[in-house]
């Protein structure tokens, strides 16, 4: 690990620990959800940036995680268990879809469309559950209104106090850093390197003797677990989940986050998410009708000006600045 990287990690941990002291209550709550979204974006960057498989279904896996968390939390009150269930259920779903797709050798562009189609089917289905009889135990699915009154995560047992904003921030941030570190480590492991080889040229990896199918399936399941974890955290944060997570704009925005940040760098996904969401949130506060025009124009500008996303541009700029030390020839 280079010194620059080590420094960046240390900085990240430091910022996470120190930041809550400096933030207002509202900012704590808002940055928490940004980090939850970033976790979702990370799940896509793992399956896409590392393994090269474009999935439009990360938002759907996020949604499944949220709904499962809600169902388990409302029925049993064991919220840490609910969070775990929220991570595992999408992984199981991804296992099934992945099996059908990868063992059936579906092409990559078509995998993207398949995941989009499944997401849209879920949108229709979950949206039709408005009738109160659509409930799992005590948890009503709620149709387009969604599932409400979902209990927040509580680390002190079912009757205990739910986590407050600061604890929520640490939890989301801590999990984000942990998952980020794990993904980076995984990408550098031999499994991860084979994945990247699959991304570069799948046929070559097959000819070299690697079974690409289970590797892709595993990668998809891992990304699903990450997305589901984010979904559970989201349901805990907002105390609700609704079918909007299965809509086309939501499915697309996850891709946008990763593209803006630069896919493949993993931390770029975090950067892209925070930037886009912060901008959208800021523009909405202006309260005027030109918000969508501005956001659209900004996205176009980012694409045209930053070819590979913002993260690579930033690292380049940083490395450039570091290189410009006295004694070295100045570079234009």
């Amino acid at each position, binding site marked *: 690990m280079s010194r620059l990287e080590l420094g960046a990690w240390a900085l990240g941990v430091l910022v996470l620990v120190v930041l809550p002291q400096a933030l*207002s*209550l*509202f*900012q704590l*709550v*808002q940055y928490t*959800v940004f980090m939850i979204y970033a976790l979702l974006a990370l799940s896509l960057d793992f399956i896409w940036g590392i393994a090269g498989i474009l999935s439009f279904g990360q938002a759907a896996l996020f949604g499944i995680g949220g709904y499962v968390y809600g169902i388990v939390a409302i029925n049993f009150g064991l919220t840490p268990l609910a969070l775990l269930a929220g991570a595992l259920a999408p992984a199981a779903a991804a296992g099934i879809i992945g099996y059908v797709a990868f063992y059936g050798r579906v092409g990559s562009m078509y995998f993207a469309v398949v995941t989009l189609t499944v997401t849209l089917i879920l949108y*229709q289905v979950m*949206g*039709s559950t*408005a*009738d*109160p009889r659509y409930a799992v135990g005590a948890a*009503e699915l*709620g*149709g*387009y*209104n*969604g599932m*409400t*009154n*979902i209990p927040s995560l509580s680390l002190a047992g079912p009757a205990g106090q739910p986590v407050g904003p600061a604890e929520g921030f640490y939890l989301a941030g801590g999990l984000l850093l942990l998952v980020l570190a794990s993904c980076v480590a995984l990408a550098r492991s031999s499994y991860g390197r084979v994945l990247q080889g699959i991304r570069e040229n799948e046929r070559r990896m097959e000819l070299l003797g690697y079974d690409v199918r289970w590797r892709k399936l595993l990668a998809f399941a891992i990304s699903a677990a990450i997305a589901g974890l984010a979904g559970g955290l989201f349901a805990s944060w*907002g*105390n*609700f989940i*609704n079918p*909007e997570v299965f809509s086309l*704009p939501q499915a697309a925005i996850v891709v946008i986050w990763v593209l803006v940040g630069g896919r493949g760098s993993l931390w770029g996904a975090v950067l892209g998410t925070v930037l886009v969401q912060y901008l*959208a*949130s*800021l*523009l*909405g*506060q*202006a*309260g*005027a*009708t030109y*918000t*969508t025009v*501005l956001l659209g124009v*900004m996205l176009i*500008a980012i694409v045209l*000006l*930053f070819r590979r996303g913002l993260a690579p*541009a930033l690292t380049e700029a940083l490395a450039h600045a570091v290189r410009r030390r006295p004694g070295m020839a100045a570079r*234009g």
Partner: protein
Amino acid sequence: MLTRRQALRRFGAASLGLALADLPPGRGQAAEEIVVGTLLDSTGPINIYGLPMVDATRFAIDDINASGGVLGRKLRVVQFDTQSNNQLYTQYATQLILESKVAVLMGGITSASREAVRPVVDKYGALYFYNEQYEGGVCDKNVFCTGVTPAQQIGNLVPWSVQEYGPKFYTLAADYNYGHISADWVKLYLQKSKGELLAQEFIPLDVVDFGSVIQRIESARPSVVFSLLVGGNHIAFYRQFAAAGLNKKIPVVSPTFGLGNEQIVLKPEEAEGIVVIYPYFQELDNEANRKWVAAWHQRFGAGYPYITDSASTVWNGWHLWAMAADKAGSLEPAKVIAALESGLTFDAPEGRIALDPQSHHVVHTVHMARVNDKKGFTIFKTVENVEPSDTKQVCDLIAKPGQHTQYTPKF
């Protein structure tokens, strides 16, 4: 030597920085002002409902300030555009309550958006007004719903339709919570009026081809089509119904038509004759409304498309809160809630309304009207002081104050 790309990047960054610096920070008020918050969709598909409500908010705040404000202090409204996105409702609600520390939060248009806001309001003990027609049933100490509900609309529209047109109903409802619950209410009132439900269909919100639906309606030969269709895409039904010449053969009644200015998007010959029912119409012929409409047109222009019932509801909501805060002598939610539960009445443009203490809903006078050929409505019947019985019969927040839920009818 800068490449063009580098120059563009620097320019872009500088502009971005300038643009961000220019945006209003949303904090730091004059010492005397009261900060209040509103969340409405100015952009995205829901803005067909949202934009008149945004205008009504400004109009109401200015009016309250012109008559001395609340507790002698002026109101400053912080308005966020939730961009038809429910996640933003939760985010901005949290921001308005925690950071801007608003004395009251008003807003939400679809029921989904309201349900995204309620948990936040309950979590932080804030006061919240939902000023829009909806399916009824919200029973929450911190929440006041001033919009018109099924008992008030459907409860009158169904018996009248059975009398006027006949007993055989064909229900078309938007496929989401409001549609499903309202369709259940239609069934209930139809039973009471000895009518017959031939069929009910739920249409997803993004359907634009109603060919199959219209064909089934023709097969069934109902006396009347009861429409609970919602949103821009569903306007296609009325257009295609008229294209098949059916608007002259089968009457359509609807408690949702007009809220999104459908009568403006459709041509007069397509929409004429559709029967609707609301507490407020721009055409209401009373002293208070004549003045109100004139003031609205002076403020927003004589060419304003149409002042919707939602706009009037928003106006009512702000004034009810202002009255209660003045009565309570305080901005503290608990005290204002107590004042709101003291049996307030208000002289609204629609007439006199009363805020029901037990259910936190409003007693409305409803009017029935037909779409006319001037992109408006001609009122022909009035029913006074209709209680929000749908919510009232299950919700008593005076006897049981600790509730934070929405009841759904089980038939």
